[in-house]
């Protein structure tokens, strides 16, 4: 029985509640609140298995699936407000069980490391799996909600016609795109918005005077998009990333092909067996673009997205546990993303790392300061390489 090196300890004492620490397994993304008695016990256990006696030991249940509030909610998975911590006074056996449950103590390193493999099925609680699997399991078993419905609602307003301003989606992505559209989209341009969903960004670009074709495989989203299309925007149902799927879009017809929050699914499928081939997609994009046109891709950041927000509110730090080979993350590393596109005959012509708009400081200061230092999205602009 030992404390894995994956565990960090963070101070969380307050005047009203002194002597509290957060023990966090940053790989397993699990945590438990500890008093200093338990902290000391963890340090002494390796040399003295009986250290600390029988208790009682004070600790706190603090862990929860914090991303339930949104993909861009605080991903740290412990309760920030210490008033919400659930106090436990445990004997030694109970304490050890609680510490093991949250991966602060482990019995066997081989068994522990095996837990980082993908989940085998929806009921698998032994393997941690990636974020999609954890989220799907939480939604299906704990919340009993449809993950697809959640996916939409955490980003868009109830009527699905705008991006929620009270989340980092609004403060980063939407605010940035408003400025970017002013800079890049002008009257008479032709834009293809691949994976347009309910057409929020298609409408934004059309309102700048562009002729926008929004394409999505979901008829449900397209019905909302069509009902609310602004002048210059039209919407078509086509599959994306399958051979022949975009054949109805004429060659050399678009000044810009736009895609947001979509390429990641070509690297880590949303569900097993998802049929999407990025090479087919990129070949289509290259064909659709006019000579000199641009492929604009807005995607979650390969390093910082879904990593815990630690430290003081206005002086955040992050612990990154994986980058190139992801077992939890769902976003490819930067080189993985860029190489796929350049190998398909494009060059990178612009890159922006996008930070939140100032208003968000009042809504969620921790999220604001974190995302202002560690960008959660980037925009890449590619152009076809002229042979």
């Amino acid at each position, binding site marked *: 029985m030992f404390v894995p090196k994956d565990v960090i300890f963070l101070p969380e004492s307050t005047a009203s509640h002194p002597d509290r620490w957060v023990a966090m397994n940053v790989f397993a993304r699990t945590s438990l609140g500890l008093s200093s008695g338990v902290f000391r016990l963890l340090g002494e256990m390796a040399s003295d298995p009986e250290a600390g006696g029988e208790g009682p030991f004070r600790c706190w249940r603090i862990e929860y699936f914090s991303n339930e509030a949104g993909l861009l909610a605080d991903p740290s998975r412990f309760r920030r407000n210490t008033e919400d911590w659930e106090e436990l006074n445990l004997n030694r056996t109970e304490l050890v069980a609680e510490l093991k449950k949250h991966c602060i103590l482990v019995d066997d390193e081989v068994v522990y490391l095996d837990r980082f493999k993908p989940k085998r099925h*929806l009921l698998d*609680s032994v393997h941690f799996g990636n974020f999609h699997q954890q989220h799907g399991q939480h939604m299906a078993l704990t919340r009993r909600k449809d993950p697809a419905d959640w996916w939409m609602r955490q980003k868009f307003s109830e009527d699905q016609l705008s991006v929620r301003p009270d989340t980092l989606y609004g403060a980063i992505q939407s605010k940035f795109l408003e400025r970017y559209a002013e800079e890049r989209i002008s009257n008479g341009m032709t834009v293809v918005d691949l994976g347009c969903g309910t057409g929020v960004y298609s409408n934004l670009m059309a309102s700048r005077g562009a002729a926008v074709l929004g394409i999505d495989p979901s008829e449900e989203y397209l019905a909302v998009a069509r009902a609310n299309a602004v002048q210059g925007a039209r919407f078509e149902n086509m599959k994306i990333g399958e051979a022949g799927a975009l054949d109805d879009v004429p060659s050399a017809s678009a000044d810009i092909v736009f895609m947001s929050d979509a390429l990641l699914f070509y690297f880590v499928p949303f569900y097993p067996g998802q049929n999407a081939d990025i090479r087919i997609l990129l070949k289509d994009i290259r064909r659709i673009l006019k000579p000199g046109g641009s492929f604009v891709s807005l995607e979650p950041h390969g390093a910082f997205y879904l990593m815990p927000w630690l430290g003081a509110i206005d002086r955040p730090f992050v612990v990154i546990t994986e980058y190139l080979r992801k077992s939890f993350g769902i976003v490819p590393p930067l080189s993985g993303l860029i190489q796929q596109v350049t190998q398909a005959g494009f060059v990178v012509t612009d890159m922006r790392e996008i930070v939140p708009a100032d208003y968000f400081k009042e809504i969620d200061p921790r999220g604001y300061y974190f995302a202002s230092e560690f960008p959660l999205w980037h925009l890449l602009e590619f152009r076809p390489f002229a042979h």
Partner: protein
Amino acid sequence: MKHEQLVRDFFSQNAKSPLPEGEEALDVHYLDDGLIDSFGIVTMIADFESALGVAFTAEDMQSYEFQTVGGLIGLLDRLAISSAN
């Protein structure tokens, strides 16, 4: 094993291959053996809860017991008794 028939009926209607006859069925790990997929589990949970007027907790559903046919029947028997009381 009061609810064996309920479970057998569900698998005969929804599983990719049939459950074996008799006691052999009780040891079947229906997920590992690919009898139903994740969508099937969601259907199964909803069906059993509405048939018996019970609610599984997240702990019930992530227990080892829940993953075998026999364990599932035992759990349904227990939940039905406690909900009747």
